[in-house]
């Protein structure tokens, strides 16, 4: 049994590091006076030159049909049947994207309609599968989807087989090689991404096999889902060594130096407006969805862990935090007990962490979930008998793996491309904080359906490569799994709580 922190390994965590405040909102007054075009403009500023570097390196001697390709700096200047390469921002014109115009013209307050095709299924008493729920808010309709690329000068439609195997969503900046075959349609044959940001040097010394534990989606709730709480309790007991008897177990537990909780620790949105008091019927419009009891319970759970392990917590979509990204740290007072501990860290989402001289970039998953919606046909689209989709990438994402989506955000050097188009974020004026200026060593995304990992190599212009460990951290309440990352080898493994 581990009862004393002395026994635990301790990681190296500097108090201050260069990217610590990358995702803090301005302290001064928030103005909201800027339109969203400023973010895109900032994105161009940060990424265009990096794409250009990679594009010229790769294509400057390229020929198509024996004609040498040239760089066309304005999409508008693309000439018919002339091979060239262009750089711009992708825009996805997809049928089932949220359409506020429809919402407000049929509805007086702009409350979004619930997923209607799902309701239809429910009414018909058809079986609703997990994938149906995911598809019910998806944007795509493969038969009418249009991908375009634009810059300040204009837009051009994209075509080409390459699109079937490439993840591209609104807001991604890329360089494309191809040619305008039909008027207004650019057929692409190759693609480049921005040069990867530099990686901080890692001096590998003896790390005694230190490990970081990633958790996400604990979803503490009061009432119906007490299960979530009891599994979490079990996890805590295990981590505290209360259930372990073998030396091996103890050794492993001792090596865990940090716990990072990637959002959705509570599920306060479940307690939504059902308990409206009769006398208030005509009064309040925004109901508090706050459930103090589950919050208290979670605080208790954390404070137990904190006795021996440092914990970092990110706010997620179901936590009491703002919806817009970057989400700011959860309010201190929500953690009466935990806040007493100095090894408790409330982080923003996304956030950069610096542990054992490695840079970790974490999000709680809404970025990937939104990209997923671009890759999957909406529930209203009949998939037909052969459920196989034409596009190989859609197939893979829908049925097999989300890794390509996580890898995509690294390749694009942008972790939140779909904001502000379909994901909500603050209208930044002088910066697009989500465009990467540095490549992390580890990129962890929470609340994913299953554990997946890969080691992605990204190119830099002089032939260098940088490697990123990519981790999809599963939702704990559904899988009872967390992910252990070895800080020396950057390999990872699953930790599962069996019931």
């Amino acid at each position: 049994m581990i009862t004393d922190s002395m026994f635990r390994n301790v990681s190296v965590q500097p108090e201050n590091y260069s990217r610590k405040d990358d995702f803090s909102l301005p302290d001064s007054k928030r103005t909201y006076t800027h339109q969203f075009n400023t973010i895109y403009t900032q994105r161009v500023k940060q990424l265009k030159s990096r794409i250009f570097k990679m594009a010229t390196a790769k294509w400057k001697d390229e020929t198509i049909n024996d004609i040498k390709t040239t760089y066309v700096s304005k999409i508008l200047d693309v000439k018919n049947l002339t091979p060239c390469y262009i750089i711009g921002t992708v825009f996805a014109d997809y049928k089932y994207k949220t359409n506020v115009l429809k919402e407000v013209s049929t509805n007086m307050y702009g409350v979004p309609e619930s997923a209607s095709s799902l309701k239809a299924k429910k009414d018909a008493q058809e079986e609703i599968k997990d994938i149906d729920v995911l598809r019910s808010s998806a944007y795509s309709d493969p038969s009418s989807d249009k991908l375009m690329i634009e810059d300040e000068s204009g837009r051009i439609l994209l075509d080409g087989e390459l699109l079937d195997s490439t993840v591209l969503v609104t807001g991604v900046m890329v360089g494309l090689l191809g040619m305008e075959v039909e008027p207004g349609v650019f057929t692409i044959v190759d693609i480049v991404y921005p040069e990867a940001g530099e990686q901080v040097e890692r001096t590998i010394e003896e790390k005694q096999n230190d490990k970081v534990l990633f958790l996400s989606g604990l979803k503490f709730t009061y009432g119906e889902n007490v299960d979530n709480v009891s599994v979490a309790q079990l996890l805590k007991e295990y981590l505290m060594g209360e259930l372990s008897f073998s030396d091996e177990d103890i050794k492993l537990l001792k090596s865990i130096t940090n716990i990072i909780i990637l959002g959705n620790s509570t599920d306060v949105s479940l307690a939504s407006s059902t308990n409206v008091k009769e006398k208030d019927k005509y009064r309040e419009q925004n109901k508090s969805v706050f459930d103090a009891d589950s919050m208290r319970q979670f605080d208790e759970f954390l404070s137990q862990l904190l006795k021996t392990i440092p914990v970092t917590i990110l706010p997620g979509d179901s936590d009491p935090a703002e919806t817009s990204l970057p989400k700011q740290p959860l309010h201190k007072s929500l953690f009466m007990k935990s806040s007493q501990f100095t090894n408790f860290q409330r982080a923003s989402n996304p956030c950069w962490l610096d542990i054992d001289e490695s840079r970790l970039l974490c999000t709680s998953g809404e970025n990937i979930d939104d990209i997923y919606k671009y890759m999957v046909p909406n529930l209203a689209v009949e998939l037909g008998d052969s459920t196989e989709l034409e596009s190989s990438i859609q197939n893979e994402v829908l049925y097999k793996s989300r890794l390509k989506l996580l890898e995509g955000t690294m390749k694009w050097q942008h972790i939140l491309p779909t904001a502000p188009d379909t994901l909500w974020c603050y209208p930044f004026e002088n910066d697009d904080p989500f465009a990467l200026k540095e490549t992390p060593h580890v990129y962890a995304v929470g609340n994913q359906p299953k554990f997946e990992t890969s080691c992605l190599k990204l190119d830099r212009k002089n032939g260098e490569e940088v490697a990123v460990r990519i981790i999809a951290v599963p939702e704990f309440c559904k899988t009872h799994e967390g992910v252990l990352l070895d800080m020396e080898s950057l390999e990872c493994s699953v930790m599962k709580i069996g019931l």
Partner: protein
Amino acid sequence: MIDCKITGMGWLTAPAGKYSVISKYRQVSTCQLEITIDYKDLTSHPSEGKYLSMAPLRILSFDIECAGRKGIFPEAEHDPVIQIANVVSKAGDSVPFVRNVFTVKSCAPIVGSEIFSYEDEGEMLRKWKDFIVQVDPDVIIGYNIANFDLPYLLNRAVALGVKDFPYFSRLKSSKQEIKDSVFSSRAYGTRENKVVNIEGRMQLDLLQFIQREYKLRSYTLNAVSSHFLGEQKEDVHHSIITVLQNGDSQTRRRLAVYCLKDAYLPLRLAEKLMCLVNYTEMARVTGVPFSFLLSRGQQIKVISQLFRKCLDLNIVIPNLKSEGVNEEYEGATVIEPKRGYYDVPIATLDFASLYPSIMMAHNLCYTTLLNKQTIERLHLEKDKDYTLTPTGECFVKPELRKGILPTILAELLSARKQAKKDLKAETDPFKKQVLNGRQLALKISANSVYGFTGATIGKLPCLAISSSVTSFGRQMIEKTKQTVLEKYSIKNGFPFDSEVIYGDTDSVMVKFGYDNIETCMKLGEEAAAFVSTKFQNPIKLEFEKVYFPYLLINKKRYAGLFWTNPKKFDKMDTKGIETVRRDNCRLVQNVITKVLELILEDRDVTGAEEFVKKTIADLLQNRVDLSQLVITKALSRQDYAGKQAHVELAERMRKRDAGSAPTLGDRVAYVIIKTAGDKNYEKSEDPLFVLENSLPIDTKYYLENQLANPLIRIFEPILGERRAKELLNGSHTRTVTVAAAKTGGLMKFARKANTCKNCKATIKQGETLCKNCKSQSGELYGRELAKMNSLEVKFSKLWTECQRCQGSLHQEVLCSNKDCPIFYMRKKCQKDVVKQAEELKKWDATTW
């Protein structure tokens, strides 16, 4: 035309050998081929068989942009035309084959469009004229081109002294000129129009077309395209246009893209509404030239047919001077409605083409009208030789002399039957459109014959006919009612006594009593057939539909679900209910629509009541979005006399800032706010000004002057007077929190004390909650968060939508489309979210 049987939009053959071709250099027109032929040698083809097809007309749609001065609606004498966008397409094709923009000064390229830039405006106009002559369109369309774009171009050319500009018709020597024309018609009211002669090219102004054919809340291109195409359209205010023009080739490109959109929209609208097809068929059926259809009323169509028929029959029509006698005759009856909410199916029995059938059945015509002397002279016998109408007029029986009008009508109706039959058999979608257009045209024509005889300021009024027609109609409706009541009664072995709850000109609504739709449909069929036997051929009663449920509010005011098969209702049908009135705000429209949906579709009256109460409570507590409350009216010259809300406001805005104030021709948007005065026209205010200064909305005005009447009208038949009134003043209206004007005199003296966010108890500076409320901190913080989140999401969604709407992520949104529900919402949201962010910040510092 009539003498040669040539119809508008029909096909002609010039037989070989009968004509001679005029050589190119002697042509007076710019046509491809010019011939001379004796008009008697032309063969006209009736529009049948292969002559049913439409000519491959070349359609040009265009739009101009002018650079106005600040605060003044563009005037041709001063303000230059800076861009003209053109889209040309062949009738029936889905994609235009020419798209281009003529610009003054350079303009960056646009994918898929040609750009022609000129340094000099006059040069651009000249080149545009050349373009028109070269592309040689058969039809010119656009939005408000008749009253704005065309006259503006012509006047501008005069102002610039471009003498060779106004020659773009097909006649080389004909100069295009602007004439004023007043168009007045009983059916369409009076309109002043400008007319530009463009020989050889038809003009179709979509604005005029839509104003004639559809009743809408607003006729701006924005509103119209959102109505018919389901799209919002970015709108650039004319004051910004000048700014864009004076920028660089990129900003001018932006303008050009916008202008192209505006040029393309009319083409898409025309296609969607099939105006060309329908008007073509109307021209062919009635024989009048295409242009008359927009510029003249119904009468001309009847006259044209009358003349044609008389020619066949060798009858001469007297050219009567219209005397303008204003005799009144009794119109159609309506059976007094039994107002109420019917939760059982109501069958509707309709007379098919009632007035035309009456005229045919009783042989009513100018040529069959008898007077006393004639009857005596010829010893005619009543009922054997002539018919005595209920108004005491006598018409000879068809055996003795068949009237012209009945003959025309019979032809029209049988042609319509044929067209409908062909329509069913036809598979080609384009021909289907043509046939459908034709049957509609035939129907409208048949119905307008009656109106023609009754038009007292018309060409050939004959009240003996029209009053006889209506009197027969009345009689028949009454008789139908009696027959149905008598047959479907308990006395006759039915379980219920049927009831006729309402009847208008040509229909009777019957409640049989059964609650099953299928039974009622069967009975309806049966009753229709039975009653038809009691009338003279070709009068026929038809059963068409069942309403269930049915809300009968008053004469010509009802709503119900419309069923033609027992499985699924076809649609919701409403009449005379305030959803389209122009001076209503959007709130009224939305509330009424929702209420009707709840009552009729969900059959949930309680739910509807709840909804209304909730909405009223929201309204009174300022939770309804401002865009719901905006009222818009166009500022036109006549308005200056009376004191009207929008005129007064325009005046006030001009004093505030002449540059941005609405000018003549602009549409003024306003909301009613609380002010010291009590005259409504003093209380109008610019919605943006209201948002910026947080002025209090006069919610009472909206409740009493906008919502109250339509709501009472709907709910009274259902709930009774007392309970309906309760909706408007029940307990839910008592939670009013008065938002005081911020700039009030007293406010200056009130010191702002820090109060508890929850209970409003006074607390120390820097705190957020009082001691008692501290324990609820978490919940209260959660509530502020929830508010923040809903605003953040709204803010993001709204501004991204605009970004999408304007078709670029990188450009700033400039749109000021006041018809778009998003426009005010996004401003309001911006303000709210900033405020809420500050509220939330106060919590950052506190601990609990």
